[in-house]
């Protein structure tokens, strides 16, 4: 009897803690949603009125005309999709060689990759910008693609995962007459779903949310991404609280969709590769 009672108390405590955690994590988003359908003058009323009497759904229409939101979203989607595809293809491809093939100069090349992981981007963004400028790539989307698509991190993450796949599997496939490209395409890629999902989330989120890169390279409005576009809007119309929040909700949705659809692979992916963000 006593232990059962203690268990019940333990459960109640546990759930109280969980609910407090969820509140801390979610309340800012709830506030964002609520403010996005309010008049500016009602945003700061206290006590907070979570559901306004006259919901201003029109905020969600106004944002499309007040700022070129559609252009920003189109630019960001284009960049994010291209970068993610390039990153997945080139790094899984290169990682296969580093994990499963023997060749001259392997260690030196890999050291070059690893060496730059430890160098923060912010430490070489200045020379990189000057180099891009000399290629006439500033104010082009190509600059952002080149910047993001060939990270050493992607190669490292995929290599770690491939190494957990037994070499005997590749050997057996070779004896069966498969060449290396077939082994990569038919054997390794399907097996590496968790790692690919993890890399997809990191790359997609990283590119979608990137701020300093686009801020340096894209100064013309028609090229801007959603992050610097929204930031520009916030600076210009700092008192348009309802509109700012509505635009914020809109730009959170794509990340939410990608995240929810891939998240079941995510913990597994991090656990098997043991890596950073």
């Amino acid at each position, binding site marked *: 009897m006593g232990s059962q009672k203690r268990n019940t108390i333990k459960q109640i405590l546990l759930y109280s803690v969980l609910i407090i955690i969820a509140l801390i994590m979610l309340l800012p*988003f709830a506030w964002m949603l609520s403010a996005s359908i309010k008049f500016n003058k009602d945003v700061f009323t206290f006590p907070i009125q979570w559901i306004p009497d006259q919901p201003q759904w029109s905020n969600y229409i106004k944002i499309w005309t007040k700022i070129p939101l559609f252009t920003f979203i189109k630019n960001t989607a284009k960049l994010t999709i291209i970068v993610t595809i390039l990153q997945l293809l080139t790094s899984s491809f290169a990682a296969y060689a580093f994990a499963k093939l023997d060749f001259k100069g392997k260690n030196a090349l890999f050291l070059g990759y690893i060496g730059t992981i430890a160098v923060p981007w*912010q430490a070489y963004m200045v020379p990189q910008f000057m180099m891009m400028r000399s290629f006439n790539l500033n104010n082009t989307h190509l600059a952002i693609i080149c*910047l993001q698509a060939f990270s050493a991190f992607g190669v490292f993450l995929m290599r770690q995962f491939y190494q957990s796949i037994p070499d005997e599997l590749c050997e057996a496939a070779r004896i069966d007459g498969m060449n290396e490209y077939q082994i990569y395409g038919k054997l390794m890629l399907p097996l590496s779903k968790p790692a690919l999902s993890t890399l997809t989330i990191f790359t997609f989120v990283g590119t979608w949310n990137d701020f300093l890169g686009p801020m340096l390279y894209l100064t013309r409005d028609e090229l801007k991404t959603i992050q610097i576009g929204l930031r520009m809007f916030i600076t210009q119309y700092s008192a348009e609280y309802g509109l700012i929040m509505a635009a914020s909700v809109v730009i959170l949705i794509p990340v939410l969709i990608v*995240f929810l659809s891939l998240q079941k692979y995510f913990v597994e992916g*991090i656990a098997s590769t043991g890596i950073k963000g």
Partner: protein
Amino acid sequence: MSRQMKKNLVAYSFILPNFLGFAVFTLGPVIFALILGFLEWDGNNPMVFVGLSNFKELFADSRFKIALWNTITYVIGTVPLTLVSALALAVVLNQKVKGRNFFRTVSFFPYVASLVAVAAVWNMIFNPANGPINMLLYKLGVSADHLPGWAADKHWAMITVILFSVWKNMGYYMVIYLAGLQGISGELYEAAGLDGANAWQKFKNITWPMLSPTTFFVIIMLTINSFKVYDQMYMITQGGPGTSTLVLVYHIYNVAFKNWDLGYASAISMVLFLLVLIVTIVQFKGEKKFVNY
């Protein structure tokens, strides 16, 4: 063609697409950065070799010293707070409870959410004049003069950014801890339970020591990422008020793209790189000592 040659060529063909991009857009600029610190360059006129003078300039630059100090303050504030919150979250979310996946997803969401969007909400919630946090504090009896000024007050600005960063990033480190927790065998807890150990004793004697490799990894990652902080400052405090949240990357940005003093900006970058390098070396050297089982 010999067999080994063929094998080499196949391997290079796998690496080439990534390596071309990597060599041109990462490796090249990294090497350029190492050289640029010894040059004087405004981006238009020819570069001039100036030896160590950029590095000597660091010692006389009061804004650099402030930025370095602020960055270290941010690191010291952020790392332990994030670590403790992430570990606590992971331990709670590793219990067998209904809706566990929902709570995990919720805790991770701030990490993937757009920084501009959540920083905008944060600025409103922590608005010193009429934001809900200060309204609540006022209702709870804090007098109007003593309400924190958050991002607008030079004593509170750094704290505001640190709180924001902890909230935004702890979900990510929680996932790493969850992965670590799943590697601990359940038998250890059962054995301890038979010996009559309570929850705290189990945590102290099993969980914490078994997690030490994970903790070590988390500390390193957190420290490196905190040294690179910029976006949060830009969006919440713009480096101010005054210089109270001016950090190294902010200073690099201003020196490079406002003053066009590219050589000196690279010298500051070198300091940032050295700080991160030291942390990385500590990781390689210290991992064996720190892991205690």
